């Protein structure tokens, strides 16, 4: 995203919406009561699926299904080729140097556990420090705490400024310690929307002799990502937020870093030879993929990458940035509404509170207007504490959302205020 130019091609959101079957449905339908059109603004939790993804998975199961990497029979080869094609697509999507640097997991969460357990277990010892940020998702906190209780590593936390921007000065201070071995930080906050300056963070971490891991679960959905340009040692994504199926995640790792890591889970597929005395393991990335992988999900994820690539991540980014600007201005005009996360670089995620109304009540009410938002702590409890709120309401936009939907949100939120006054 740092280096590419935004395209000016018109983005036809009405046409894009036709690709998503669910977007035509109504919600809260009852006999005698017409339903409300769905306004789906919970994309940061999980995105809806285009027909291309749904069809690819169904077609694969109906025509090409088999286990992968195992058989000599025809379908096994077909399925393996299709599944491995997703690895190539993923590498291209992230501009990774080689498909061999792409490890498939079952979720972003599993990818974090893999890195903490395998890389952390092999390279970190008692007293070594890792740096997280206060805006991390629990998936980038708890695996490190589990490692801490096994090995005695020390977890340091980089703060954010009041607008939700990562505090780079504080990060620099934390990096002065010679014991820091890893900086594991989000590339895009699921609560604040903040997009962090990944290339700069990587430079700082590397200058201090530390490796760097980015949580791209959110960022990679909203903008082009180039793991070589930002010089990430690890980069993590999750399939279901990128319009793909659940049960599929991605871990990118630099070749030499992955090579330095022992297996994560043991089982079939990840071994070369097994005897009861000794087992040798396969090469990277297969060493980290034990057991029958999420094959159908992998096919779906490949279709999702094809889909967003055809639209263009630049065009998606530009569309969502327009929505962000539009919705921000409209929400800001509502008295008593507090936006949490106003960083100048952010994705189209708007967390807010309304004076005197609990987020849970906001969620239940706007839902009745057909508007789906998330309310709660968003798996980021330390961040809630940082901003002194118990919970927030969060509207998160995707490539298929429209200004009219932003209006529907704003109208519903205004009505919530009136309801409680």
């Amino acid at each position, binding site marked *: 995203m740092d280096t590419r130019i935004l395209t000016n091609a018109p983005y036809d959101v009405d046409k894009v919406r036709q690709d998503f079957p669910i977007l035509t449905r109504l919600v809260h339908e009852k006999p005698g009561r017409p339903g409300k059109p769905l306004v789906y603004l919970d994309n940061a939790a999980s995105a809806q699926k285009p027909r291309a993804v749904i069809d690819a998975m169904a077609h694969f199961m109906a025509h090409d299904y088999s286990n992968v990497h195992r058989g000599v029979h025809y379908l096994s080869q077909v399925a393996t080729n299709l599944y491995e094609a997703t690895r190539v697509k993923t590498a291209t999507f992230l501009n990774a140097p080689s498909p061999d640097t792409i490890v498939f997991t079952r979720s972003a969460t599993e990818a974090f556990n893999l890195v903490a357990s395998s890389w952390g277990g092999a390279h970190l010892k008692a007293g070594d420090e890792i740096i997280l940020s206060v805006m991390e998702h629990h998936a980038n906190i708890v695996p490190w705490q589990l490692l801490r209780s096994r090995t005695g590593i020390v977890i340091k936390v980089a703060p954010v400024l009041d607008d939700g921007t990562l505090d780079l000065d504080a990060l620099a201070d934390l990096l002065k310690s010679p014991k820091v071995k890893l900086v594991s930080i989000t590339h895009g906050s699921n609560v604040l929307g903040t997009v962090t300056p990944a290339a700069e963070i990587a430079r700082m971490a590397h200058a201090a002799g530390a490796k760097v891991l980015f949580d791209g679960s959110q960022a990679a959905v909203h903008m082009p990502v180039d793991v070589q340009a930002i010089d990430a040692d690890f980069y993590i994504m999750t399939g279901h937020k990128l319009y793909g199926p659940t049960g599929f995640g991605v871990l990118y790792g630099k070749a030499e870093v992955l090579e330095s890591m022992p297996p994560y889970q043991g089982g079939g597929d990840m071994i070369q030879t097994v005897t009861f005395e000794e087992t040798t393991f396969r090469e990277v990335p297969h060493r980290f993929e034990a057991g029958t992988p999420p094959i159908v999900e992998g096919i779906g994820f490949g279709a999702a990458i094809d889909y967003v690539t055809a639209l263009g991540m630049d065009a998606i980014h530009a569309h969502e940035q327009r929505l962000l600007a539009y919705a921000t201005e409209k929400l800001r005009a509502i008295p008593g509404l507090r936006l949490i996360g106003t960083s100048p670089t952010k994705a189209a995620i708007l967390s807010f509170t309304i004076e005197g109304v609990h987020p849970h009540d906001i969620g239940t009410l706007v839902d*009745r207007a057909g508007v789906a938002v998330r309310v709660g702590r968003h798996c980021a409890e330390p961040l809630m504490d940082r901003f002194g709120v118990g919970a927030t309401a969060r509207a998160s936009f995707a490539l298929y959302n429209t200004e009219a939907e932003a209006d529907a949100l704003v109208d519903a939120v205004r009505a919530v205020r009136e309801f409680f006054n």
Partner: protein
Amino acid sequence: MFDDLRDLYQEVILDHGKNPRNFGKPENFNRMARGENPLCGDKINVYLSIGADGRVQDAHFDGRGCAISQASASLMTETLKGKTEAEAEALFGHFHDMCTKDDHEHTDHGPLDPEAVEKLDVLSGVREFPMRVKCATLAWHTMHAAIHGDDKTTTE
């Protein structure tokens, strides 16, 4: 826009939600528990003062939460006063049934104070909102924990 939500957010609930009764930590109490709903981050404390006769002399709460959980806690503190522990538990059993089950599925929890039952009835609308049941029952779970001497509870 929200007409059909009036069953859930009745005027009494909005009133108790905005102006909760018996709110704040009292000077004297002899039972206390902290309740938390990890789903939404709501946290409340329930303070009971139970007399030598085994009856609840006073009930208070504090903490933050949605309109439903605040109103439920407020109404609960009002209905608990004068109840024995067994009566309080019976009321909890009834309340839980009311929030989660159809009328004919309610079980017998022992004798109930009809006035309290009527008062709590304003919350019966949550049955149509399964995601909000825990908001309504948090205070009661916490009260139960206070009586039984667990100082922490959660609705998960």
